[in-house]
């Protein structure tokens, strides 16, 4: 059964700008892929526990000892924009009037 996908909604969740052409292509392709992927519903019964990692490890601890870390300059070296030892971004909130 073909899968109907709300491409605009998913693109918004994924924070990806898509052109109209990209949306049309993606809608068709994802429908085909998801139709195949839906096969997972055929076999996995309720009594089967999910597996998140093939070789699970829990509570991996290490000594909490200080180690050298990046300098400000090194950490900011790849930043598209920076100032005063900080990453610079466009406004993220309205300023008060």
């Amino acid at each position, binding site marked *: 059964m073909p899968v109907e996908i709300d491409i605009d909604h998913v693109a918004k969740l994924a924070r*990806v700008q898509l052109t109209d052409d990209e949306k049309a292509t993606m809608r068709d392709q994802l429908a085909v892929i998801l139709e195949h992927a*839906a*096969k997972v519903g055929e076999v*996995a019964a309720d009594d089967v526990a*999910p597996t998140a990692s093939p070789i699970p490890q829990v509570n991996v601890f290490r000594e909490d000892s200080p180690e050298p870390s990046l300098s400000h300059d090194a950490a900011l*070296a790849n930043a*598209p924009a920076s100032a005063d030892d900080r990453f610079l971004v466009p406004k*993220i909130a309205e300023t008060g009037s």
Partner: protein
Amino acid sequence: MTELCDRSGSQLSEGLRDGEITAVALAESAIARREDLDGRVAAFLTPTPEVALERAAAFDTYLATGAPQTGVAGIPLALKDVLATKGIRTTCGSKILETYVPPYDATAWTRLSGAGSVLVGKTNCDEFAMGSSNENSAFGPVHNPWDLDTVPGGSSGGSAAAVASGMTVWALGTDTGGSVRQPASLSGVVGLKPTYGRISRYGLIAFASSLDTVGTFTRSVRDAATLLGVMAGKDHRDATSLDAEVPDYAHGIDGGVAGLRVGVLAEAFGEGVEPDVAASVRAGIDRLAALGAEVGEATLPHAEYALSAYYLIAPSEASSNLARYDGVRYGLRVEGDDSIEMMFRTRGAGFGPEVKRRIMLGTYALSAGYYEAYYGQAQKVRTLILRDYAEAFERFDVLVSPTSPTTAFPIGAKADDPMAMYLNDIFTIPANLGGVPAISVPCGLDANGLPIGLQLTAKALDEVTLFRAAAALESDLGLDLRPPLLAAA
């Protein structure tokens, strides 16, 4: 004509130790080969000849003092461009990281570098390691040295092509669903995907964290064992790295397969497998039997669902991992009126079609109302596949199948059909879901003279058995695999 760069790592290591060759001559040989051929192959995104010659000269000076060496010292190595190299551009084959220069090294590289490896460059790959043909690189496809009109496989296609054509002696790749083994198969070299967690992923730019594995491309099985021995082991910077003992992987590698229980995966010879591939792999299995292996029929009953589970789990994890590319801290930024618009525009312009497709697929599979039906069910299939492996490895020491259903296909042949492309990975994906080690070994050529790979799979952390079986087959077949391109070089 055969040059230094065409020899195996173990041969070269002996030559260096005995003083027959120098590391500088070896590096020069690999660099010359790249300069000669890479205009047509496009295996490298960022060659590093100056770094290589400096390191090689330092090694020759060091060796003159008579100090002992490791099996990798002085030997040219290439790294897939998803492994972070301090001070050397690391792009992931993506426009979004086109100018990214990491401030740190990946642990896999740190360990090889510490052991004396000579870095000759960073190799082309599918964008963020998503692909099976290397056509998804933002910097253009890689051409298979066996036939320049065909793909080398992917996603580690540049590393595979570089080893196959002598531009390096060996190389690292990464394998999330077959991205080392499939290109190794299509390019006629040995490709190893070790056990999940065996090699630290610190500095491997993440695609799908429950599946990603660092792997190797080499000219021999012994060389794969050498590289793994240097890289394997716990790393406190990667909590998923395993604390298990690192054996001497070369020990007993020539021990043969007498009595080894070899299970043939019957379902891996069905529809979609090219007749030449099936025949060549079956001939390889016959050789294992002739060498004394006990060959029987094995099955992974849920393998038919592995592809479906993979194309939910991997994109889901990718959609989360790639959320970090937001135009704020590194990589491309396309300005917008506010930070959210900047993010939409940056990601729209920076990611290529396949990466967008997988981010969308993963976002959908994880979204409210669909999570259980897709991601949740896929995780359950994973449990079933782990059970299949556990049962198969009670009866067998190694499992055999083709690595890929086909040999190298023409560039462009599957580019517009994602589902057809995904089917390339049908035999390699189960090992990633199960976390078990697997290796692709060349076993012959098809009617068009293109390489065929045979895949062996062993239980978790049993790389020793994997190497022993693979080395026995390699030695018995005695193939001299040299792409026609090199005859003219």
